[in-house]
């Protein structure tokens, strides 16, 4: 048992929590205060739990040796003859192991957060309070939000970890140990967020606005700490993605020969690197206000509550592009494979991701139109907000042109891509009414926004994520999934999803408020709320079908051929699952990635290293001998 990193981490972590709490209480007694005060004691205890957990799991052992002046050398890969499953519960430097760890954790979180959504839907199915107090409802709503955000961030990291080194032809990420740390620090983060429910909850929603955030029950402290941990993981992950993408590409892979998913992740990583500090600092300031009384956001002390919203939304708007840009990359990646045609307008699709990322930094105050920023700021941010539609539109028209006269085949991944296309389109079209000041005054804080947001998240992340899981399932596991169950999953999910969001749009327009547990029966929302609840359960059912399919196929699925989709991408040219260090002979890129159906076109050749040296930072030497 103790050979499992996770178990060691949990034991050492528990000891660490006790030590941290004891030390804080001792310090308080020494200062002549009562030993117990929930906020500081649990804050220090939780932080020391995170650190000791990571120590226990072995995250710092190489760095510790390095700090003592030893050469740590290459990261330690476990004995290939040891049982594989143990790697997934240990501190393991392989990007493929970490990718699966991220993806599975993300799926688990999606189930948890989905369950929370179903609980909310049950409460909302009829007017009147069914079985919850308004405060419990608010905590569950906030948890649904933040756990889903965590799930999406982890899902993005999962796809990126597994795919980026493979797609750029590298043996692993640039910093494998840091990569493993990025994953393992999310685990205590997630646990802390779940713990917030049992330590009084938080009735602020996932945005944690002050002054409510500074006064909410103890649970909000755990919520903030969990966000810090996941945010740190985001930042460290982005450093890895950027370095790997920019410095470790195979010879011949110029920027404009990269797969579009890598472009999407490049834009995403830039946002993660820049923006994540902002949510961290906004929450840190609330914690300082709460624990030390520093009045950042308290007007009575010279602070300003709107300042929080500026800092918070400077992350939290770009964050939605962290969620969707990888998904849009997946759509661009899979479309050419399933229509057997070149991707239309490769450069425009690639650069539109960067454009979205950059414009995305200039729109944050569209969440604050009703705060009273004044007409000048409001109209400026309205303008920048609708500007985002331009690069997004470029993507859509290029996808349409890609499909035009293609030989489309409708396997499950393609169905999810098409579903994402339609759902994200509606998400995009329902956005400008929120982004336009006059209509937003009417729509702000209504279910219209909720409907819009869920369309962008399902179209931009959930559906592409599912497409990616089905598409790369044969590569990761070496087996095929069940096509019939896959299609059933797709149709149940799509129908259920539209039942939910159509109702949300409808009651939103009629004036149903967000973030409340109850509504007046006289408003006539009951029917649509019931439809939404039924749709929600249909989505839940589809996720059960998905689970059955995945579990059954991993154990007894048909053996997959090396390249079932006839994809041109690098990762499909090697065995499934790929070898420990990916490419037995180094790949050399000699053409564009999406020239499907172009006679005589070649994307990649193997084993002629040193033929082309595009990046001076890399010395490609004679590795052809292996």
């Amino acid at each position, binding site marked *: 048992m103790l050979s499992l990193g996770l178990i060691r981490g949990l034991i050492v972590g528990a000891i660490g929590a006790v030590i941290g709490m004891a030390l804080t209480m001792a310090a308080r007694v020494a200062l002549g205060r009562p030993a117990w005060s929930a906020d500081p004691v649990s804050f220090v205890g939780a932080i020391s739990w995170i650190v000791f957990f990571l120590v226990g799991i072995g995250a710092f052992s190489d760095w510790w040796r390095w700090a003592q002046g030893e050469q740590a050398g290459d990261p330690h890969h476990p004995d290939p003859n040891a049982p594989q499953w143990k790697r997934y519960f240990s501190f393991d430097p392989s990007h493929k192991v970490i990718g699966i760890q991220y993806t599975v954790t993300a799926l688990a979180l999606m189930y948890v957060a989905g369950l929370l959504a179903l609980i909310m839907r049950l409460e909302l199915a009829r007017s009147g309070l069914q079985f919850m107090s308004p405060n419990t409802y608010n905590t569950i709503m906030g948890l649904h939000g933040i756990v889903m955000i965590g799930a999406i961030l982890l899902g993005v990291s999962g796809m990126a970890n597994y795919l980026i080194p493979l797609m750029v032809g590298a043996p692993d990420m640039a910093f494998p140990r840091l990569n493993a740390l990025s994953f393992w620090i999310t685990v205590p983060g997630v646990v802390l967020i779940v713990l917030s429910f049992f330590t009084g909850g938080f009735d602020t929603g996932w945005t944690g606005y002050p002054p409510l955030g500074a006064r909410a029950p103890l649970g909000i402290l755990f919520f903030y700490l969990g966000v810090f941990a996941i945010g740190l993981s985001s930042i460290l992950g982005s450093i890895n993605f950027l370095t790997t993408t920019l410095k470790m590409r195979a010879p011949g892979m110029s920027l404009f020969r990269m797969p579009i998913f890598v472009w999407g992740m490049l834009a995403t990583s830039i946002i993660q690197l820049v923006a994540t500090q902002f949510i*961290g600092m906004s929450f840190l300031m609330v914690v300082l206000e709460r624990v030390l009384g520093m009045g950042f956001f308290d007007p009575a002390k010279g602070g300003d509550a709107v300042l929080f919203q500026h800092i918070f939304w400077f992350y939290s708007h770009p964050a939605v592009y962290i969620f969707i840009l990888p998904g849009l990359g997946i759509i661009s990646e899979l479309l050419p494979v399933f229509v057997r045609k070149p991707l239309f307008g490769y450069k425009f699709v690639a650069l539109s991701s960067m454009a979205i990322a950059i414009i995305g930094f200039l729109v944050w105050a569209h969440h604050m139109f009703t705060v009273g920023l004044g007409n000048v700021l409001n109209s400026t941010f309205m303008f920048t907000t609708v500007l985002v539609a331009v690069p997004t539109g470029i993507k859509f028209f290029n996808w349409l042109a890609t499909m035009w006269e293609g030989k489309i085949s409708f396997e499950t991944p393609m169905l999810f891509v098409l579903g994402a296309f339609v759902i994200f389109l509606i998400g995009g079209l329902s956005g400008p009414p929120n982004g336009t000041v006059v209509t937003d005054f009417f729509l702000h804080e209504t279910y219209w926004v909720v409907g819009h947001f869920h369309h962008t998240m399902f179209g931009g992340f959930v559906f592409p994520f599912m497409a990616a899981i089905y598409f790369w399932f044969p590569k990761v596991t070496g087996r095929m999934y069940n096509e019939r169950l896959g299609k059933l999953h797709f149709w149940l999910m799509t129908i259920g999803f539209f039942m939910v969001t159509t109702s949300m749009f409808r009651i939103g327009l009629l004036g149903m408020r967000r973030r409340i547990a109850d509504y007046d029966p006289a408003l006539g929302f009951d029917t649509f709320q019931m439809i939404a609840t039924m749709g929600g359960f249909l989505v839940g059912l589809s996720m059960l079908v998905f689970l059955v399919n995945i579990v059954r196929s991993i154990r007894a699925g048909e053996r997959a051929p090396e390249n079932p989709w006839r994809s041109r991408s690098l990762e499909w040219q090697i065995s499934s699952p790929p070898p420990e260090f990916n490419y037995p002979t180094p790949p050399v890129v000699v053409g564009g990635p999406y020239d499907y159906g172009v006679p005589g076109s070649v994307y990649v050749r193997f084993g002629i290293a040193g033929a082309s040296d595009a990046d001076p930072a890399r010395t490609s030497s004679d590795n052809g001998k292996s």
Partner: protein
Amino acid sequence: MSTATTHTSAVVHPEYDRLALNRFGLWLFFFSESLIFLILLLTRFYLFGTSRPEELNQTLGLAITVILLLSSFTAYRAETAIAHDDRPQFLRNLLATILLGTLFLLGVVLVEWPEAPRLGIVPQEGFGIAFFSMTGMHAFHVLSGVLLLLMVYLNGRRGAYSSDSYWGVEASIKYWHFVDVVWVFFYPALYLL
């Protein structure tokens, strides 16, 4: 799946310029970290505009600024020395850097922090919110920098690092300069406006 023969990384890893990767990653980290300080700086201007309390101890402010700049100078000399295998000079300058850093830290935490509330600048309200959060976040980074340099110093005394392998020295000293750059912006924003 990997077999025992292809398992040793040397066989299959193409050779990347480790140093270039490390440097790139470190600068990305600096960039991300600098935003923490940018946020605090912007918060200071958002809440208090260009106003500043007159009471702050100007002598102390100037003194710690000079101390930190000097420590960057000695850090630069330490790195130059190890790059040319001059171990005594390396250790001498590194020790000077550590001492100057510690002096800065003591100046902020033991002199400035107790003195400011007596002059009416308290962490809970008014300008003190900005003053204490900015100096606090910066002092935290100085502390981590001092610890890093101390670690490097102890290793260096035991004979670690040489002109062709001193990434640990380079990274810690770069971090030290980074912390100094932050203070270059914080000093005028807190003391001089």
